[in-house]
């Protein structure tokens, strides 16, 4: 009973998160302006991090936790660098 419930709820949650990643990717690809694309990228990495956490629950291994932590930190650095690039036109001043 509990195995059935967990399996199907995790599959459904992963489908929902996959749809959310599709929305973010759509915004990343279509723009219309550079700041919209970066906003899409920001949403994409948060959604991907949540997806990795659900994979961790599915496999029952806490190794996925480290991957999620790294995604969240690298995504932060990437978005900050890109926003800085938009503001000044160069990353390192």
């Amino acid at each position, binding site marked *: 009973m509990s*195995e059935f419930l967990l399996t199907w709820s995790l599959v459904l949650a992963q489908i929902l998160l996959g749809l*959310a990643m599709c929305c973010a990717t759509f915004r990343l690809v279509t723009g219309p302006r550079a700041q919209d694309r970066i906003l899409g990228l920001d949403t994409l990495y948060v*959604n991907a*991090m*949540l997806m990795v956490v*659900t994979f961790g629950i599915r496999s029952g291994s806490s190794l996925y936790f480290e991957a999620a932590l790294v995604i969240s930190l690298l995504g932060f650095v990437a*978005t900050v660098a890109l926003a800085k690039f*938009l503001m000044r036109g160069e990353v390192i001043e």
Partner: protein
Amino acid sequence: MTLAHDFPVWAAILVAFFVLGGSAITLVGSLGLLRLGTFYARTHAPTLGATMGMGTILCGSALYFSVLETRPVVHEVLIAVFITLTTPVTLMLLARAALYRDRAEGSPDVPAAERMEEAPQRPESAENRSEHEEPAR
């Protein structure tokens, strides 16, 4: 797929509720990215996934591993703290960069800079630069 066979039903129901609720909220936030009309309205959408979606999914994960390993597993708190501290910073930087760009273009939709030092000083595109005739250094 290595889900435990003797996992208690009450915990399974709670984990399913948390994970499904969190992913549904994240999906709503990402839909907002498609449905909202302007960039500044769209910046509000990702915070749904980054606050409540993240919180509920991590709650589900912490509950699952705590019950599975019969000891408190709370290291999901770390991801929650990092995301809570970093997402506002990125959104603020991004919105300020967009405001700066819109002001540099003279867009009528954004409030004008109130003081001179806030106003964009450096023209961005090559056409603008040639009009201002910067002295060669």
